[in-house]
């Protein structure tokens, strides 16, 4: 009689466990590692700000990457959109004497525009997105360099524009707002249903009348908006926008989001993939904080992150085999126990 309730409770518990296990386990392990070395991830007053900023940056980049990649569209232009939108908005804000909010809003507006242009080029040329995004990355890097004539944009002495980046509450609002908007747009709207239909079956969806072109352009525009916030957060926290990114110097941003995207996708199986991206961002920021606390060299960090990515992918790509192996082991243990019991009885 209680079976459905029990089953539901079990399902909920499984969902909560699956959703939280990675960030909690990683956080605990890294906390122990730090404690064993006599350091702490949160050693001073700035640590929380750095942590929340890290979470915001990673989460936004991951969602921006995942929106198009889940539909089979590689987007190499993410980093260049972040830089160019930050350069344009910074130039306007600094020249007009605006504040942090002005720069953030301008960044988002230009991010949407740049993303839409990127999507527009893709749908107009009808070339594979991997090619158009390379062209767009080159174009935007060149534009950022040309606008500033090769000089970096500096925020030295301009504390007005970095007000958001130094305030934990504002960044938490950004994280919550982005998460909410993304969930509503992609999981609870007509646009989102069509996006998912196109993702699952492009040909069938197009034949049933779903407008693929406008859906793709909106995806690029939304992705651009997210990257513009990343550009703003990075620029104002570092205090400088480096335009020395010619020749694909901006595409590294895309690669940094792969691991959190796969982790987020895995967590998403138990709850929601967007929530998964947030938890993956928290997980990755735990790593960054630990590297910083332990003064790990950047080359070692790269190797650890790459190994983590490969190991996680090996698990994801061979999940069934891993489970089968685990199951066989389980059966073998049961068999062994039974045999041991029979021997004892004899």
């Amino acid at each position, binding site marked *: 009689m209680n079976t459905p309730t029990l089953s539901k409770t079990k399902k909920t518990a499984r969902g909560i466990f699956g959703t939280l296990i990675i960030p909690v386990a990683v956080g605990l392990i890294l906390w122990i590692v730090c404690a064993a070395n006599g350091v702490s991830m949160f050693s001073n007053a700035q640590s929380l700000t750095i942590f929340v900023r890290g979470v915001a940056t990673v989460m936004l980049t991951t969602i921006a990457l995942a929106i198009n990649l889940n539909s089979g569209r590689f987007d190499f232009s993410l980093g260049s959109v972040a830089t160019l939108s930050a350069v344009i908005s910074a130039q306007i804000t600094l020249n007009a004497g605006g504040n942090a909010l002005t720069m953030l809003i301008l960044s988002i507006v230009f991010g949407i525009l740049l993303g839409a242009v990127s999507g527009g080029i893709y749908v107009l040329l009808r070339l594979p997105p991997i090619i158009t995004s390379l062209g767009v990355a080159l174009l935007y890097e060149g534009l950022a360099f040309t606008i500033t004539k090769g000089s970096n944009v500096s925020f030295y002495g301009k504390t007005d524009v970095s007000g958001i980046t130094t305030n934990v509450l504002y960044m938490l609002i950004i994280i919550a707002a982005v998460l909410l908007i993304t969930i509503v747009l992609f999981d609870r709207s007509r646009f989102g249903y069509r996006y998912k239909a196109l993702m699952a079956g492009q*040909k069938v969806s197009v034949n049933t009348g779903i407008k693929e072109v406008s859906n793709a352009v909106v995806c690029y525009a939304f992705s651009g908006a997210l990257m513009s916030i990343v550009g703003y957060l990075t620029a104002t926290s570092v205090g400088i926008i480096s335009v020395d990114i010619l020749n694909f110097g901006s595409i590294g941003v895309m690669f940094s989001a792969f691991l959190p995207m796969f982790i987020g996708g895995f967590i998403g199986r138990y709850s929601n993939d967007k929530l998964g991206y947030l938890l993956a961002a928290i997980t990755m920021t735990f790593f960054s904080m630990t590297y910083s606390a332990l003064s790990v060299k950047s080359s070692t960090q790269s190797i650890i992150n790459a190994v983590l990515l490969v190991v996680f992918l090996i698990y994801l790509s061979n999940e069934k085999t891993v489970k089968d192996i685990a199951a066989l082991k389980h059966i073998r243990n049961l068999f062994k126990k039974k045999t041991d019991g029979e021997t004892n009885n004899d």
Partner: protein
Amino acid sequence: MDKVKTNEKFSKRQKLISLTPIIGLVILLILYVVIGIIKDINFKAGFEAIVNQSVILAIVATGAIFIFTLGSFDISLGASTLVSACAGGLVYNATGSVALMLLTCVAASLAASLVSSVLGSIFNLPVFVTTVAMMSVLSAVSEMLITGKGGNQIRISGLSGLENIWVKLIFLVIFTAICVFVFEFTKVGRRQKALGGNPVCAKLTGISVKTYAILAFIMAGVGIGLGGFLTAVRASTITSGTASDIGMNIFIAIVFGGMPISGGPRSRIYAAIIGSFSIRILSQILTMLLAAVPGANGIAQIVRAIFFLAMVYLASMNYRTKMLPR
């Protein structure tokens, strides 16, 4: 009758479009000569610069064609070239042997390529993501090799005798000849094209995806090794920025040269050479035109981007689909 004429017309149009990369290269060459005459440049030095800049890219890209033919994509080629150059440079400094240096360069890049391909093949990982991880690892390894002895560079001296365009051209011609032979006249090339064109059908006919993926990475590894060797010879000082422009430019060069991104039977070895020379000639033209303009590098890159997209658009006009490509 009309249908035959229409077909002939379409076939001619297809042929013309498939020749777009070669036509583009010829136009760029003519433009280079015309602008060079107007600007009164030293043509000997100019052509030497083009060859110097193109050959390394062309060699690495030619090897990489084997990977791209399978419809795969390797992002770690630039990082692998740097590791290969670093390893070769260190061995040369320790032994003074050019032969050992060349062998080390090829061995290092082959090892890197094999790790990527074996990881991808055995554990069924997506090749692109595997190479993203490899790129991080190789960049870290090169940093360790460069800073291993406390400095931030590897200095190589005594190789100036090898630093001339004829040596580079010999490397390019020999390696291209081997690649053309393997690609066009052996079952390896044919099967790779089949796998790139229709993997399901190729698998059903008994072609092993794993074997041919590993073979593709081996060919690419040899190209990277030779590129790494020439990089070490050319740059007497290797830093973490050496060969940094090779990685993505390989992709640009291959696509620019008319290689379809999906790989398959339309793949051509010569795409790498045409593309490499085209983008270097274009860069030289832009350098001549924008020499006195502030922020010239940025403008040059914008023009390069537009030119790249326009060329690829023209070259792929035969293959438009109703749905958006992915």
